């Protein structure tokens, strides 16, 4: 068979396209490798006999459990697509538990550096100063991806003792519904220990429905925050299949924010007055999807990207950009964008008061961080 020059050229273009797509594209498999890792202390020495748990976050269940060996190494037999790993050292070790980042299932080898534990005593009281027994107290480690490292219930005296890192977010949740919370953000825990008091006000329930242009919206995140109170985050919930939700609120005026994690709708905000506004309705406008690309020297820079909606005076749900540095966020006709690179060496990038036009919004980081 003889080929003409143009046929040969077409064949060449086809072969070039296949080469550019790459051999891995054709040989790609979905097998998830078994997870393994190492647990060390701040000086790099292995921490032995720590319990290591592998969870599936999709199914919210424990998948496998193992123990670190004398060098701090551990191996699981399994891998999980949306896996998350918890390391819990022995109580007498003096270290705090540690969580892997979310979706660590494909990470392969996971390193854990355990931090020394400090003692935190928490007293939970009501507004009259009476102790609140059976309140749930949580300690979150402060980092870009916080996680709960200690949980406890208060005793009959409203008292609980937990382990904590040197800086923590601490929350107390009412023992009975609605489970209103009170917070202490960025609390410093001294090396000799610390004591905190959290006051839980009387709670009420605000019920409502979230709608879009085509009907009720499911999976919308609703956040309730007491107006004017820096640590007055009452709680959050997600709307059900019929768009309905119930939120804990204090008796004071409260701001309810609605955020769409799917990124299709603009955020909305509603003020709930002191009493009598316990049935609310929120309508979310559909946003225009905008692709934001963050780069440095023309190369992708992975970031968390938010869009500001001036009408609602609210930020969208933050979206993590892909490996190509692109993220899609919903925007209105005018909007602002803030992108915070995952690498903290780079300063945040932003564009303020932008009029929407078709195209990609490119944000280029300065060459020298």
């Amino acid at each position, binding site marked *: 068979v003889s080929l003409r020059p143009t046929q040969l050229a077409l064949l060449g273009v086809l072969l070039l396209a296949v080469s550019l797509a790459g051999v891995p594209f054709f040989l790609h498999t979905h097998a998830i490798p078994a997870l393994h890792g190492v647990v060390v202390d701040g000086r790099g020495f292995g921490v032995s006999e720590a*319990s290591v748990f592998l969870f599936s976050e999709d199914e919210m269940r424990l998948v496998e459990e193992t123990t670190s060996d004398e060098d701090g190494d551990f191996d699981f037999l399994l891998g999980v697509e949306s896996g998350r790993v918890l390391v819990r050292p022995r109580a007498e070790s003096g270290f705090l538990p540690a969580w892997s980042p979310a979706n660590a299932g494909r990470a392969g080898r996971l390193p854990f550096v355990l931090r020394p534990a400090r003692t935190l005593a928490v007293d939970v009281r009501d507004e009259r100063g009476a102790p609140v027994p059976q309140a749930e107290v949580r300690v979150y480690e402060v980092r870009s991806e916080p996680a*709960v490292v200690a*949980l406890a219930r208060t005793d009959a005296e409203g008292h609980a003792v937990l382990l904590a890192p040197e800086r923590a977010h601490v929350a107390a949740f009412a023992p009975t519904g609605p489970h209103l919370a009170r917070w202490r953000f960025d609390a410093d825990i001294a090396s000799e220990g610390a004591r905190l008091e959290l006051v839980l006000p009387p709670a009420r329930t605000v019920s409502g429905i979230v709608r879009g242009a085509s009907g009720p919206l499911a999976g919308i995140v609703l956040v309730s925050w007491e107006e004017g109170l820096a640590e007055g985050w009452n709680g959050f919930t997600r709307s059900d299949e019929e768009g309905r939700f119930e939120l804990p609120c204090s008796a004071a005026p409260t701001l309810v924010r609605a955020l769409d994690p799917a990124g299709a709708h603009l955020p909305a905000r509603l003020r709930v007055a002191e009493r009598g506004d316990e049935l609310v309705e929120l309508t979310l406008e559909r946003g225009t999807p905008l692709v934001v690309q963050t780069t440095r020297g023309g190369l992708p820079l992975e970031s968390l990207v938010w869009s500001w909606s001036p009408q609602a005076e609210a930020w969208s749900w933050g979206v993590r950009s892909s490996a190509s540095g692109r993220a899609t966020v919903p925007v209105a006709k005018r909007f602002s964008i803030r992108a915070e690179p995952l690498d903290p060496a780079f300063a945040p990038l932003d564009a303020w008061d*932008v009029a929407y036009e078709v195209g990609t919004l490119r944000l280029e980081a300065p060459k020298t961080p």
Partner: protein
Amino acid sequence: VRTSPRRRQGWILAFVSGVALGALVWRPAPLRAGSARANCSREGALDELERARLVQALIRAESTAVLLEQLAAAPSDSEGRP
């Protein structure tokens, strides 16, 4: 008017090459940012972002609280589960 097969293949080659070249060199045009005088207070919006970022991160951490509660309810092997 009839086109010869050779000429038709030539057009196809030119089209495929053009698309491939276009995909390689195309770069999205940046949108224009407006004046610093936004219709919202930049400082106010950034204060609001502090809260939005914190709330989102803590909502994401909710699964760790649920999983820890599960562990507390069912002691692990290392704690003497039969």
